Each structure stands twice: as structure tokens, then as C-alpha cells.
């Protein structure tokens, strides 16, 4: 199956792109996708783990199974915080 992957902010800089298509085996999860991306793009290593993941704009857990055509976004911590 194929999923659309979106990167933002410092993670997009590290990935060298804001989006890409990833080919995955059936029943792959968000965690599987993360491992594959970190292997393919070493500059992402250690960064995706600090991101929340959203599938089709809804935040999900790493165990979430993916489906063909899903849009998976890796979201760095948002800037708001305690200010």
C-alpha cells in the first residue's frame, strides 16, 4: 500500500521535503512507517520519535494500522507551551 507522508517545521528541513509517498507492506503501522523513514533518511533519526502522528488529521497512537491512501503527518511539538 501507499501512504502520503507530511513533515513540518524543523522535521521538514531534516527530511529535505515537506511530503513524500511511502510504500509499505500490508498491515503496517505508524511505528513501522516511522522506522522505515528513519532508515531511508538518517537525518530523521531521533526526530520522528519526538513527533505526534496524525492520520487523516486525527492524532493516533504508534500502533495504529495504516490503510492505502492514508495521509500521515508527523507533528513536532507545537510552539505554544507555557507562555
Amino acid at each position, binding site marked *: 500500500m501507499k501512504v502520503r507522508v507530511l513533515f*513540518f517545521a524543523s522535521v521538514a528541513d531534516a527530511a529535505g521535503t515537506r511530503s513524500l509517498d511511502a510504500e509499505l507492506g500490508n498491515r503496517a503501522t505508524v511505528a513501522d512507517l516511522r522506522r522505515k523513514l528513519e532508515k531511508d533518511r538518517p537525518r530523521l533519526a531521533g526526530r520522528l520519535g519526538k513527533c505526534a502522528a496524525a492520520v487523516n488529521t486525527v492524532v493516533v497512537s504508534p500502533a495504529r494500522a495504516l490503510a492505502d491512501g492514508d495521509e500521515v503527518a508527523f*507533528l513536532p511539538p507545537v510552539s505554544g507551551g507555557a507562555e
Partner: protein
Amino acid sequence: MTKVGPGRISLESAVRRVGDNGSGGIAVFLGVVRDNDRGRRVSAIEYHAYPEMARAVLDRIEKDLRKRFPLGGVVLEHRTGRLKIGEASVIVAVSAPHRAEAFEACREGIERIKAELPVWKKEFGPGGVLWKEEQDLRRAKRRTVGASR
């Protein structure tokens, strides 16, 4: 009423849009770009959003606020793109029958936007260009290292 995009935020327009004959008070929070961040000089900030998700998050915050408070009008907007010092990046405006609900709903609205909205800041200054979340991660690391000593 929610919006995420490059359009300028208008205080006057927001106040007009939340106006409601049954409401006796309007509370507004306007977030503006300041010229410093924890000791660093800042000359401009670029806001990058995941627009589709940001719109969905703002709509959910409006829905939740309306459930919790007897609101007349609600305006939640976040601007994207490069902003100068003093320009408004975010506005929360609500109208309610009385001031207590108006203040409380406004406060809750901005706190949730700060915590949940997928929008990231790139800060420009004499020291260079930095993504805000990277500075925060570095600071957190320093704190952790300091604490383990």
C-alpha cells in the same frame, strides 16, 4: 467562526462578528509578535501550519467552548506566513451574557489553541533563523542534563 491562513487579523471585524443582541460582554485575546524570546532578539516570525488539521482543531475548540459556556458568537483565527513585530498572529473573541463566562471562555480558547493547534514558529533575529520547537527541545535537554548531575 474559525480561520487559518495568511489573511491579516482584524480586531474590529472579529468584534463585529461575535456581536450578539443577547450578549452583554465581549472578551478578546489578541496574540502579537514580540521582539524577544527568552533573551533572544527577534525581528520577525514565520508561522507554518498544517492547514487542514488546524481548521479541524479550531472547529473542535469552538464546539467545545459552546458546549461549556453560553456563548453568542465565537471567532478563532490563526494567521500564517511571515509577520513583523507587533502584528497579530492569533485572535480569540467571544460574546456571552456576562463577563465571567466571556473571560473564562476566551482564556480557555487561547490556552487550547496554544496547546493543540498544529502551527509552528520560525524565529528570525540577529542570531540567525531558528525553529522554536528545536530551541525548546535543546533547552529541555539542557535541563535534563543539569538535573542528572
